């Protein structure tokens, strides 16, 4: 528990002052001071981290042509000077000898790993020729794109130029989609990628399966630790005693899949005992009476039966939150692709928050401050895709945004070539084999495609099965269009290369433009410099400022408008917080969240759960020796002690998991009572198949081979946590 009461902020201010006197306040100061005396070839460049997707502002120090060290930009509101382990290891990635160093064209069967070295001209000509033939035969809609990362708009624009609607950002269906749909239904807007929970000022926060300490987005975790050190109470429900649990005042070990039961029981208790904010409910919500009636069925005895959490623990949590209200929040979660009923879980969480009246309030939810900048476009595109999407986003699943799509459904549409042929597959920075449940469907989709092109920095499992691999320059070797970010202030972030590309690689924008031109399109791409200067001008800054500071913070707006007497606005059909959701009712689903249990594992099975550790991102970072050294190159699997004993498994034993169809690589048993007996847990992103990732190839479990492939009926997002496995000792 963090209850030191040390107001680190005060001390920080004190330090900044004393430090400034000594002239050490920031790298920039240092850089300019050193310009006169610095050894030749030492310089600093501005960037934003690409090791995960939080995009921390950073300064890269280059010495004699080699990037030596990355440090956080002191004033960037994403991270205020800090970087995590992943961020610090960006230097290793840059010089990793296993990067893809030149374009490659497949020579053997798909998946054989046989490629030949190609020039950029050859690779681009190959792609253009195939793409033209696919387009002429099947139409412009016969292309798909799966993209993730700050360069994703390059290939997205290429798809728009071609005229395909099938652009997919897997972050929706595989991660935040179900959550954001629930938030839209209740509050009229999505939560957003930088969750606007005010941990810094909160008095009490409740996280349900949100392992904030290990998900490790620097800005998020900074506020989390800061809030705790000021005395905030932390209530944490999870199936595993994670590093977040280490900081909790109240930890509740919850039966996997029963989160909605817990929240519904809390809603009932809060209403029955008048712990809610009646004035907020009266002024800003609709459907309270219906909610009260509906939730009255969820007694605390029932909650205990479903979740395994005692009545007294639930009462304590409700009372702590109510006492702190409105300076409290229940976290909406982030990756809500758990059980295929995730929209209703987050609906329940949204409702419980509304009962505490914490909207637009310090310590609750804030309203991100937009930078109000009219953004230019890299490419002017006049036409629109003439076809509907192949994945059903916006159609079969009306609440799934058409600009994000449903990765799970798109891969299935390609595998089955239904509703129409989709033959050209482009992949930018994503890894279908690791994010799509059931890799056999991915293989089928690849087989059904006439062209598969991957743009990445590593030979990922998906690149391994591709026809052409286009090696991208890393974020430390390329420009990218500046981005605008919203937290408690709105700000602009700038990326410039620290060094020229180490290998024969190019940035995504350059590649997309080359393909577009080679296919004969006349659309002009702006240079990144042109784009940036337009953006900077619109934002009220300029290149010189950005080169010196990396991050331009526009005047801070008002993150807590209600606290200063402003009325909040909700863009729902009723204009209010919809406790009873008209949107979801219109779709024919429960207008109030209900509880449907999840399938249970058999006696000899475990529920296969996975997630992040503090020092890896998705399936992207597992070849990074600096990070692997942190866990001795071992992939852990958490197993409950009693169940392990029955299987004769001891702490440190080497085991594998199997579901009959697939068998994992080696995992190291971590045996204790820190995980629910029904489940095992292993970090995501291991078990690679590609020979291009030699350091951890075959070690650990490729989670997509063992998870479930369920669908949340409301969002279309995937449910990954209903997969069951057995454990075998090696």
């Amino acid at each position, binding site marked *: *528990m*963090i*209850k*030191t*009461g*040390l*107001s*680190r902020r005060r*001390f*920080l201010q*004190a*330090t900044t002052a*004393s430090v400034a006197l*000594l*002239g*050490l306040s920031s790298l920039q100061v*240092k850089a300019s001071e*050193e310009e006169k005396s610095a050894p030749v070839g030492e310089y600093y460049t501005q960037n934003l981290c690409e090791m995960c997707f939080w995009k921390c502002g950073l300064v890269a120090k280059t010495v004699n042509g080699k990037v*030596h*060290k*990355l*440090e*956080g930009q002191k004033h960037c509101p994403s*991270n205020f*000077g*800090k*970087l*995590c*382990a992943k*961020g*610090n*290891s960006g*230097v*290793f990635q840059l010089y990793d000898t296993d990067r893809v160093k030149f374009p490659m064209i497949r020579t053997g069967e798909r998946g054989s790993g046989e490629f030949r070295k190609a020039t950029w001209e050859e690779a681009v000509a190959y792609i253009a020729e195939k793409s033209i033939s696919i387009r002429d035969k099947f139409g412009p809609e016969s292309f798909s794109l799966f993209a993730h990362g700050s360069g994703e708009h390059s290939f997205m624009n290429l798809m728009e130029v071609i005229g395909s609607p099938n652009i997919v950002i897997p972050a929706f269906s595989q991660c935040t989609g179900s959550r954001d749909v629930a938030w839209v239904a209740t509050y009229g807007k999505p939560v957003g990628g930088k969750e606007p929970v005010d941990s810094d000022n909160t008095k009490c926060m409740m996280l349900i399966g949100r392992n904030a*300490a*290990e998900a*490790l987005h*620097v800005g998020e*975790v*900074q506020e989390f*630790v*800061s809030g*705790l*050190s000021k005395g905030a109470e932390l209530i944490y429900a999870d199936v595993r*005693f994670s*590093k977040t*649990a*280490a*900081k909790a005042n109240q*930890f509740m070990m919850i039966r996997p899949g029963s989160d909605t039961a817990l929240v519904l029981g809390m809603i009932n208790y809060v209403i029955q005992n008048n712990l809610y904010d009646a004035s907020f409910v009266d002024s800003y919500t609709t459907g309270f009476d219906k909610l009260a009636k509906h939730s009255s069925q969820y007694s605390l005895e029932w909650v205990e039966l479903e979740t395994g959490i005692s009545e007294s623990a639930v009462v304590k949590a409700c009372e702590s939150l109510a006492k702190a209200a409105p300076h409290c929040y229940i976290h909406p979660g982030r990756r809500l692709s758990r059980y295929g009923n995730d929209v209703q879980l987050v609906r329940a969480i949204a409702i419980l928050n509304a009962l505490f009246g914490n909207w637009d309030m310090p310590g609750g939810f804030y309203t991100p401050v937009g930078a109000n900048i009219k953004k230019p476009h890299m490419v002017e595109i006049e036409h629109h895709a003439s076809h509907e999407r192949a994945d059903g986003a916006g159609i079969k699943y009306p609440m799934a945004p058409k600009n994000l799509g449903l990765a799970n459904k798109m891969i299935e549409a390609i595998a089955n070539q239904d509703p129409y042929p989709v033959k050209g597959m482009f992949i930018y920075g994503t890894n279908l084999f690791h994010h799509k449940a059931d890799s056999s469907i991915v293989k089928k989709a690849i087989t059904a495609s006439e062209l598969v092109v991957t743009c990445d920095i590593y030979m990922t499992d998906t690149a391994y099965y591709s026809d052409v691999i286009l090696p991208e320059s890393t974020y430390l070797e390329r420009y990218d269009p500046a981005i605008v970010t919203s937290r408690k202030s709105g700000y602009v972030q700038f990326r410039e290369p620290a060094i020229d590309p180490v290998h024969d690689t190019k940035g995504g924008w350059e590649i997309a433009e080359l393909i577009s031109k080679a296919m004969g399109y006349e659309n002009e791409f702006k240079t990144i410099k042109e784009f940036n200067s337009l953006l900077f001008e619109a934002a009220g800054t300029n290149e010189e400022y950005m080169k010196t500071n990396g991050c331009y913070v526009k005047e801070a707006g008002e993150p807590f408008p209600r606290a200063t007497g402003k009325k909040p606005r909700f863009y729902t059909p009723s204009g209010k917080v919809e406790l009873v959701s008209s949107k979801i009712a219109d779709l024919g689903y429960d207008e109030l969240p209900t509880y449907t249990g999840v399938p249970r594992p058999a006696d000899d099975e475990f529920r296969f759960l996975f997630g992040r550790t*503090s*020092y890896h991102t998705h399936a992207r970072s597992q070849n990074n*020796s*600096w*990070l692997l*050294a*942190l866990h001795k190159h071992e992939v852990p699997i958490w197993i409950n002690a009693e169940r392990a004993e029955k299987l004769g498994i001891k702490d440190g034993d080497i085991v594998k998991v199997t579901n009959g169809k697939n068998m994992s690589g080696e995992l190291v048993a971590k045996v*204790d*009572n*820190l995980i629910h007996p029904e489940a095992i847990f292993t970090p995501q992103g291991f078990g690679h198949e590609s020979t291009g990732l030699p350091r951890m190839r075959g070690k650990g479990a490729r989670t997509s081979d063992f998870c479930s492939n369920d669908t949340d009926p409301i969002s279309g997002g995937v449910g990954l946590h209903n997969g069951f496995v057995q454990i075998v000792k090696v």
Partner: protein
Amino acid sequence: MNKKYAMAYVVDRCIDCKACMVACKAEWEVPEDHFRTHIDQGMKEDFHGKTRMDFLPSQCNHCDDAPCVTVCPTKASHKRDDGIVYVNRNRCVGCKYCIPSCPYEARFFNHDLGVAEKCTFCLPRLAEGLEPACATTCPGNVRVFGDINDPTSEISMVLREAKNNRLKIYKLREDLGTKPNIYYIQN
């Protein structure tokens, strides 16, 4: 008065993210499988039978009475006036005596260079006016570095406030008489 560099960890702020370990590795090109600072995980049950998990950072304690300095035959390992225990790489002959002598397991052998290695409190960074790399990057703001002989330094203020708030302040294995200079502040 001479400077006396020290570090304090506000232990309860640590989330075991290991950013410090990697920042240090990057800054000092620490060989691949070694680190100059570590985070240990401690598990225990409190008196209510509740599980407690603590994260304890560690690094060289820059001891005032340092066994590594005592055993070093070449005086490569020495205690500087500013409190830093430093290994002069030009003098180090790689005899490795110091490595087992350290009760804190702070040292390791750098096979690439053939010398004993450990935390330097980022001496070259201090000369440039920067904080140590680990403290600079720490997302939890756990690590407070500075001159404990200067009452206005951040570390002095933090230690004072911790004392006023009756927080637990301790050092590792003080019973050994090494007089370590890493302070642990905990609730």
